[in-house]
Each structure stands twice: as C-alpha cells, then as structure tokens.
C-alpha cells in the first residue's frame, strides 16, 4: 500500500477522502458520496455537460482536452449503445496517482462514470485497470458490488428510471493500451493496436458505439464539480485550466509523493516547498514535468506555472502529472536510453516509424552509452527522432521522440563527454561491471 503525504499548499478535491476509509460505501456516503449522482439525476444532460465544460476540467490522462467539450461530441441519437470507458491503465513512467484514487476512493470513480453516462445517455460504463494493479481491481470490484447492492448501479438507479451498469475490466501489461483507441481494442479482447482516427471514439468507439473515454482522475473529479459548481472548480486553477490535479513527485527529493495542487502551481515551489527540496548531497539537473513522454526542462526552466498552456509555452507538456526530478548523479545519456528502452519495449509495432525508430534509437543510445559512440550519432539521434515526430500512427511515437530531442538538445555536452570510447562519467563503477551471475 502506497503511503500518503500532505502539504499545506495542497487543495484536496479528488484526494479529500484519501486515508479516510472511503472504500467502504457507508463511509463514502458519510463523506458526501453519491450526492453528485443524485444531483445529476435531476439535471438535464446538457446542463451536466455545460457544468463540466465550464469548470475548465481538462483530461488528466495526458492530452488535457476539455472534458465537457469531449462529452458534447457524443451524438444524442445513436443506433448503437453508448459507453463510458474509464482509463485506469496508468502506465506512463513517473505516474502513480490513479493508483491512489482506486485505493482510497473507488466509489468516486464509479460516481464519475455514472454521471458521464447520464450526461451522454450511456447505460454501461467500464473501468479498465491495468493488470499489475490486482489489489486495486479487487477493491474496485468490491466497490462496484456495494454500489449495486445500494441501488447506485443497476436498473432504475435511485428510483430515477435510469439504468446504469458499471463493470470492471483488467489489462495484462501493455503501456500502449492506455492510448484510448488501443484501450478499446484491448477491452474488446484484441491486441492493443490503436485504431484509425477519425472516426473518434465519441462517435465510433466500443463495438462501434459512441464512447467517452476519460482518465480515472478526470472522472473522479466530476462529482466534486457537480457538487461544488463549475465556477468554484474553475477558480481553483488558472484560466482554461480548471481545478486541481494530482502531481506525482518522484526522484531524489526529501518528500516525494502524490500531492494535490491547484493547476498553475509553480514548479520550482513544487520541488523545493512541497517536495521538500533535493535530498542531501544532490542537486537538481532536470525535470520531467509530466511523465516520460514530455520534453525535459533544465534547472533554468523550472520557474513555470504547472498548467497545460504554460508548459506548452515553454516547449513541454503538463502530461500525466508525473513530475520526475533528475538529480546530478544521473547520466542524461543513460536517462535517454532508459526512456527509449521503455518505448522500444512498449511500441505496439504497428507503424514503421515508431517500431523501427525506437529500436534504432535504443541501439544507438546503448552503443553510445557504453562508449562506442561517434560524433555523428548525436545529430542522428535528433534526426531520427524528428523523422518520427508527428508521423506515427498514434502518439506513442511522439512520446518517444519528444523527450529524446529535448535531451539531445539540452544536454548535448553530456553526449560529447561519452565520445572517444570514454566510459560513462557518471556511472558507478560497480554498476558498469554489472555483477556476474552466481551459479
């Protein structure tokens, strides 16, 4: 069980029930649970969508699309059933927030899914949880059972005449399945290969029916918005970046952990105040602001408000909320290599640029890091990444290219330090020798 932290600057919305035993439905109800569904049942679908839109809630899965706007794309009339799909595949390196929501407040996700269903006229919702999160799947399945038992799910929920079913679904280890169209494929029992878009899921999704796909945190935020009001929520954050979000601070900090901070919170403050600053003996070198897919920021670039638009301005992305602090003991070549190994391993392999590009880049970085690099490699790394950028079938290729380009550009010196057969200047001696295997 992951431990909880807190900080006075936190504004607890989605995390407000963390540590309070809200996995039990009775406790959840005491803590204002299922009130939002009750409220939503009395609202017109358009008003729910308007409320969510006005709150400035943007997708917490990474892309940061306005949630209410996404919902409004779902056609009112549809010959095929509509679906809500909660994305709990959480696999973006650096990200571990949905895990806490499932662990401490599963009912809020169920409630959010139900409200989304009311808003778009769907009667079935799926909560997809990554396979590694087995204990969370169990928590979630139990919560769903309780919700059925109390009439919050199933036929005629709360006597409203509205039927809504929520089902759990489990993955089995694949990052790409977090991509929304691959997620649908996976739920349909297939390999996690993304789909051609358009059509977008809101129009043609699961089994051909219109489907709303949202991140677990996004959906867990919705009940709070309905209860607190769009205006209240929007004001918590910055313009067009409503509310709060869970930031996962990791790396050599004094107080790493998941903190709920208002959108637009200053990154530098986040590191030095909330996260307690760098652990003893370490200094800051770079920051991954929103999961491994986002371009890195250097020490000089961290005085920036953490919201979607501000990070875009500095050439990076807010992403998934995974803030990874890279300290001076880390080799940036090695770091780039580890990121690339991840994408090479997780590429679904469907399209040429991502499949071949990640493999090529990993090979080059591996050789480079082990001292076999030539000067031309440095430019080639950038050239190849740029060849992938914007040309792959799904954004995974971009996710692999973007951090690489930023590392090569911003830490070119470290690459040069590896040239001419020199061993990695930062690798610890014992690690380089990689211990022999004992029989």
């Amino acid at each position, binding site marked *: *069980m*992951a*431990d909880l932290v807190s900080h006075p600057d936190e504004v607890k919305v989605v995390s407000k029930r963390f540590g309070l035993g809200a996995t039990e439905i009775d406790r959840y109800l005491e803590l204002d649970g299922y009130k939002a569904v009750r409220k939503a049942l009395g609202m017109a679908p358009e008003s729910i969508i308007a409320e969510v839109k006005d709150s400035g809630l943007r997708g917490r899965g990474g892309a940061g699309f306005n949630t209410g706007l996404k919902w409004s794309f779902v056609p009112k009339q549809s010959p095929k059933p509509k679906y809500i799909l909660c994305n709990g595949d959480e*696999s*973006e*390196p*650096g*990200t*571990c927030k*949905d*895990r806490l929501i499932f662990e401490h407040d599963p009912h809020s996700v169920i409630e959010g899914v139900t409200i989304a269903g009311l808003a778009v006229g769907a009667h079935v919702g799926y909560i997809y949880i990554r*396979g*590694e*999160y*087995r204990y969370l799947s169990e928590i979630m399945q139990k919560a769903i059972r309780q919700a059925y038992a109390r009439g919050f799910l199933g036929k005629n929920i709360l006597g409203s005449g509205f039927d809504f*079913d929520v*089902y759990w*679904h*489990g*993955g*089995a*280890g*694949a*990052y790409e399945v977090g991509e929304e169209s691959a997620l649908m494929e*996976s*739920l*349909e*029992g*297939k*390999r*996690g290969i993304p789909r051609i878009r358009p059509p977008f899921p809101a129009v043609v999704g699961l*089994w051909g029916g219109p489907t709303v796909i949202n991140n677990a945190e996004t959906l867990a935020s919705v009940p709070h918005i309905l209860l607190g009001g769009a205006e209240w929520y929007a004001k918590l954050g910055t313009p067009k970046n409503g509310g709060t979000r869970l930031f*996962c*601070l*990791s*790396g050599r900090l004094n107080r*790493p*952990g*998941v903190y709920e901070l208002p959108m637009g919170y200053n990154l530098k403050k986040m590191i030095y105040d909330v996260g307690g600053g760098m652990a003893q003996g370490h200094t800051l070198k770079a920051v*991954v602001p929103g999961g*491994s897919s986002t371009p890195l920021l250097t020490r000089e670039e961290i005085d920036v408000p953490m919201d979607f638009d501000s990070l875009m301005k500095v050439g990076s992305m807010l992403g998934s909320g*995974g803030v*990874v*602090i*890279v*300290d001076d003991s*880390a080799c940036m070549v090695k*770091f780039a290599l*580890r*990121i690339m190994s*991840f994408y090479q*391993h*997780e590429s*679904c392999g469907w399209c040429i640029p991502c499949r071949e590009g990640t493999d090529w880049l990993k090979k080059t970085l591996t050789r480079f890091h082990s001292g076999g690099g030539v000067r031309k490699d440095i430019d080639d790394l950038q050239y190849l990444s740029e060849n992938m950028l914007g040309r792959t079938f799904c954004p995974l290729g971009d996710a692999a290219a973007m951090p690489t380009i930023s590392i090569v550009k911003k830490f070119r010196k470290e690459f040069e330090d590896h040239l001419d057969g020199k061993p990695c200047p930062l690798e610890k001696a014992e*690690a380089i020798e*990689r*211990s022999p*295997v*004992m*029989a």
Partner: protein
Amino acid sequence: MRFSEPFEQRFQEMASHYPTRRSLLVPTLLYAQDEVGFLSDEVVAEIARRVELTELEVRNVISYYSMLTTQPRGKYNVQVCTNIACLLMGGEEILDRCRLKLGIREKETTPDGLFSLEEVECMGACCWAPAVQVNYDFHEHLTPQKMDQILDQYTKKGTERRR
C-alpha cells in the same frame, strides 16, 4: 481442463458484461495464468474454445501483453522496475541484487522453481521508488538490504508451504 470454482464464477459473471465473448479474453487469460502458472497449450485451447476464437488469435493476444506467458516460471515472479523514477532511486542496484541473490538473470527461473526474475517497466510506484512487485505484491522504498530480506521471506514462505 478444470479451473477453480471462483474462476468459473467470475467467468460466468463477466460473460454477461460484454456484447461479445471475445472481450473476456484478456482478464480471463491472466486469471487462468494465475491458477495454472502459465498459459499452457491446454489452457490456450480451452480459452480459445470458450471465447470462440482460434488458437492463433489467442496466441497473438497473449504475446502482445507482457504479463502473459506461455512458459512456466517461478512460484514467485520478482519484477524489478528500472524505469526512470526507479532508475534515479537505484532500481538497477535492486535488480543486480536480485540477480546475485537468486543466481539467475531476467526471464530465468531458479532450479528449485521458487523464483523467476524480470526487469519491468514503470509499475505505478514512482513516488515510492525503487519498487518491486513479487507476483502482485508491491514492495517499495527498497534498498539492496531490504530486497534481501524480502527475498528471504519469500524463500521461507515458499519452502514452508511445500513441506
């Protein structure tokens, strides 16, 4: 081919959750693997039959997901994260320690069948890095020493049960 009662119950229940049989595939494979230890030919054939797919389709799906395996592995599958947050916090040292202690490399199994080892991607424990999952159990804030202790505990648990 027989599975446990809870497996059958879950299968039955889940079957009503989807408009197609095929949707049952991924979670069912994982549960089946948890019971049998790996996805044997027999399991593949049985599940293919149940979800109305060819064995080829089932194998194609299995091979896509990194948690699914058609090879037997240890009773305790030690999965060490070395992705960025863990890397920064010493994930590779943890992996090295596991190799040393267990005497195996990744994707190998100890001769007594107790452990197998895997280097894995981010498991959602970045804030509590470095982290390891043994089967489904998380072990976080690790140091090589703590890792030793954890492995010892599993060895004990595994050999006790066996006796």
